[in-house]
């Protein structure tokens, strides 16, 4: 079992849809959770970060962490064509390096 798993996609949705992107993990020591957006041929851009369990909202984006289920989600409301990208989850335990999921490719169709 991989340490971090992520739905590979690709995922296609119409403009305005709510998108749910998910990651599961096996290491219960992970405490810091991040979501990155990566446009084609560009470096990943940090979107959201959360510590431990709970929700965090930033504009159209909401990050959710459920440590009891070892499950994190990123919700995108009112999705736009500009949201079309690959989304990477990442996590780490205290003092250790980051572990990344393989990414989910999202296409938002106008």
């Amino acid at each position, binding site marked *: 079992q991989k340490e971090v798993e992520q739905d590979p996609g690709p995922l296609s949705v119409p403009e305005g849809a709510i998108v749910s992107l998910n990651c599961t993990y096996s290491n219960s020591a992970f405490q*810091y959770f*991040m979501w*990155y957006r990566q446009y084609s*041929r*560009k*470096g*990943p*851009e*940090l979107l959201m*970060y959360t510590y431990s369990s709970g929700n965090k909202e930033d504009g159209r984006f909401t990050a959710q962490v459920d440590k009891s289920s070892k499950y994190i989600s990123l919700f995108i409301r009112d999705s736009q064509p500009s949201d079309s990208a690959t989304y*990477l989850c*990442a996590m780490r335990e205290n*003092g250790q*390096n*980051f572990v*990344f*999921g*393989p*990414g989910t490719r999202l296409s938002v169709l106008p």
Partner: protein
Amino acid sequence: SQTIHQWPATLVQPVGSPLSLECTVEGTSNPNLYWYRQAAGRGLQLLFYSVGIGQISSEVPQNLSASRPQDRQFILSSKKLLLSDSGFYLCAQAKAGYEQYFGPGTRLTVT
């Protein structure tokens, strides 16, 4: 705010040739620095990380090496490239070890 520069942006090199990729960071001091490789359609593979000048940790044994000659400079090198070294190389920094920020990347094609 911090900025990460990488060059070159793209590179095509023949098998067996040497490699030098450079990463510099602005707007922060004493950051943790990282080199990742991303193969097409795959996740990020951590290659090296550094917590300070001259301090390099290798995550994956291979024909690549890294050096940190200055606080905000991180270099990835190889003496002889292999076909399997092709990929998208990303430099990243994490000041507090919590939020990690990436540079624009170098796309390497080994022919």
